[in-house]
């Protein structure tokens, strides 16, 4: 396929990123993204919040500020009470309000399976767009949310997770990446992406491919939801984690000393995961301080970019 383009496309399909970016003036570029999925929690209000936080995240990952959004709905009208849809939309709207985003429209279709998400538009200065690609050797990697939501969601599906952990992970997934993005704006960040379906190493691989550099992850420094490792050991691992591992196996080298459960977490598909930020070593500690000040408590330096041209991810 050939994709038409023009000189104002800053980020398009030639090197896919978290969202598309189009320059409007020398001061303003438009960021556009769309994301929707089927329910991952039972409570419709929280599902609405999580779906909205997940869709908004791509704008934050590009270094932008989300401004307007439209609802996307697929709803099984014949089988499901319309009150459920109402609660989902309320959850989404509350999340948009929290993010300072205006809901300006939407579209719904009748569907056999419930789906909800948003199309989001945001702004960014054309010179401040954060892509996945601009890595520099020696950069530190910072992750802003703990890993393991896919494994915990599998345990929830199996009816094996406690009420406490369900509530914890629900709030985690519904949490905006806004504070992390705001903290990032004050520091010389080189690259950024958000962690979603491909898992930490899948998204890190997207950053590393084509960079001519490699990455090193310190497994002991990873923020991980504690129960995730325990559930992984019991085999409560989503199928997507195995697919992610298979897809990227050839460019990943994991030390034997890394616990098997932690290895699973590295490939665990995340819902509304945190930002993965790449920043110069001199600025990394300052960014961590800013993140903590903004309440992003779980943020941690998890590794670095190394000048090894093989484009490999080493986990030690």
């Amino acid at each position, binding site marked *: 396929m050939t994709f038409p383009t023009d000189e104002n496309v800053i980020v398009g399909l030639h090197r896919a990123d978290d969202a598309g970016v189009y320059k409007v003036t020398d001061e303003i570029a438009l960021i556009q993204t769309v994301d929707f999925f089927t329910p991952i929690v039972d409570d419709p209000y929280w599902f609405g919040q999580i779906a909205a936080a997940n869709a908004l995240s791509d704008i934050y990952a590009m270094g932008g500020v989300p401004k307007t959004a439209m609802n996307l709905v697929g709803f099984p009208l014949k089988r499901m009470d319309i009150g459920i849809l109402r609660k989902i939309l309320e959850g989404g709207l509350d999340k948009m309000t929290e993010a300072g985003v205006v809901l300006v429209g939407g579209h719904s279709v009748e569907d056999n399976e419930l789906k909800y998400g948003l199309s989001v538009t945001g702004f960014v200065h054309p010179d401040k767009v954060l892509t996945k690609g601009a890595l520099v050797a020696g950069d530190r990697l910072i992750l802003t949310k703990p890993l393991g939501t896919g494994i915990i969601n599998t*345990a929830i599906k*199996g009816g*094996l997770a406690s009420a*406490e952990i369900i509530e914890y992970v629900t709030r985690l997934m519904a949490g905006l990446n806004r504070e992390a993005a705001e903290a990032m704006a004050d520091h010389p960040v080189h690259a950024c992406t958000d962690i979603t379906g491909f898992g930490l190493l899948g998204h890190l691989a997207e950053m590393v491919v084509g960079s001519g550099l490699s990455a090193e992850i310190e497994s002991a420094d990873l923020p991980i939801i504690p129960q995730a490792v325990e559930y992984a*050991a*019991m*085999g409560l*691992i*989503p*199928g997507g984690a195995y697919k992610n591992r298979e897809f990227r196996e050839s460019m990943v080298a994991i030390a034997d000393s890394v616990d098997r459960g932690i290895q699973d977490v590295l490939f665990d598909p995340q819902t509304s995961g945190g930002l993965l930020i790449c920043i110069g070593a001199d600025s990394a500690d300052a960014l961590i301080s800013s993140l903590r000040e903004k309440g992003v408590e779980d943020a941690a330096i998890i590794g670095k970019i190394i000048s090894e041209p093989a484009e490999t991810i080493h986990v030690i």
Partner: protein
Amino acid sequence: MKEVDARGLACPAPVLQTKAAIDEGVDFLNVVVDNEASKENVLRFLDTQGFDTSVDVEGGDFNISGKRSGVVPRSAVEAPSAHAEESKTMVMIATDRVGYGDDELGLKLMVNFIKTLEEMGSALWRLVFVNNGVKLAIEDSAVLDELKTYEADGLRILVCGTCLDHFNLLDRKQVGETTNMLDIVTAMQLADKVITI
């Protein structure tokens, strides 16, 4: 020998079906799955439950054979042998006091309750501490001696790890096994009677 056909099922269903088979107390089982992810997950689960495993590949299917090894310490998933003939009572304690109102009285009643549990005899099968209840299993608990005696007499005491962690008490626990929600839920399923305080 128990056969589990989990072909065509997505995670975590194959693990849950395997778990259901183990809960029946089988020592040998065969699980058939049709994808790599389910195979890995079932192997891991059987591993944590103390089963030796082997895998045969047939066409696109994986035939997993499991044999209880008996080497791994018995977990709550297994039916207990000692009291198998009697009715099994599980007592779950989610507080360190009995009832609401006066805390001092509540604590006194809890001490008395734990001591009096002895009267249940061998019907008392599991004692599970969750939430504030885990504070009864730590070093300055007023019933530590009683609990230790129960444990020495063969009663399995389970203490919620998430709760200990929440209260920062993981290294102060003095009695019982640190456990997870799966063990607790499984114990509930296996028990004939569950009493919650």
